[in-house]
């Protein structure tokens, strides 16, 4: 999957939990889930679970630790897809 498609899918996943539509509209690799998108930290679990379902991967705790922005979420998915 190319980066553009990956980022578009991440954007789709985080959209329902986002409380800042402006930051969602300009989402990029640096976008922070908590600080920029204002996602509630309890909903970050939903983001992780939705990413797992969307890409049919399992995100272990070590990977989940990093998933606080778009860049690290993309890296986690790329790594899991490369070495399932």
């Amino acid at each position: 999957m190319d980066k553009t498609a990956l980022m578009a899918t991440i954007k789709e996943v985080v959209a329902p939990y986002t409380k800042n539509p402006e930051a969602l509209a300009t989402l990029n690799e640096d976008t922070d889930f908590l600080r920029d998108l204002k996602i509630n930290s309890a909903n970050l679990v939903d983001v992780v679970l939705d990413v797992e379902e969307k890409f049919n991967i399992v995100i272990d705790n070590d990977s989940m630790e990093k998933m606080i922005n778009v860049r690290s979420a993309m890296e986690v998915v790329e790594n899991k897809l490369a070495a399932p």
Partner: protein
Amino acid sequence: MIGNDVVDLQLAAVESNWRRKGYLHKIFSPEEQLLIGQATDPDRMVWLLWSAKEAAYKIIHRDTRQRIYAPLQYRVQLSGADAGMVQYQDRQYPFRTVVTGSCLHTIAVALADWWPQVVYCQQPGEELLKDEAGVPFIRDKAGGEVWPASVSHHGHYRETVSLKT
């Protein structure tokens, strides 16, 4: 040091479906899941445990300035209905929770000795400051004294606490 976390229970009921498959497993240990399973009000227990982890996280973030999303590394032990201890690595953080209507508010401190120094709201003549990492402080505008603080906002509720040692 001090950390707090507020949960608007009415908003949480709409915003978070903790009953979805895999949810509890990602953030709560088997022991914590048992507490939820045995609770008369499981929703309240979920958010009490969660807020204790969040409050302890804020203390650790203040110390380390590192942002890591690792709720399973925080182990909550209750010592009564609305108090207990959060274990993180080799450290323990006592916490207390107060529920008023649908506002659940948890405060954690780094040392139990500090409870008498916890001030539960911002006083007149004080301002809230944040450093570049977003770590909050309370400053007395007249005297210039500065104390560590913690701020949490969810739904209808916003709580500011400070530690005046």
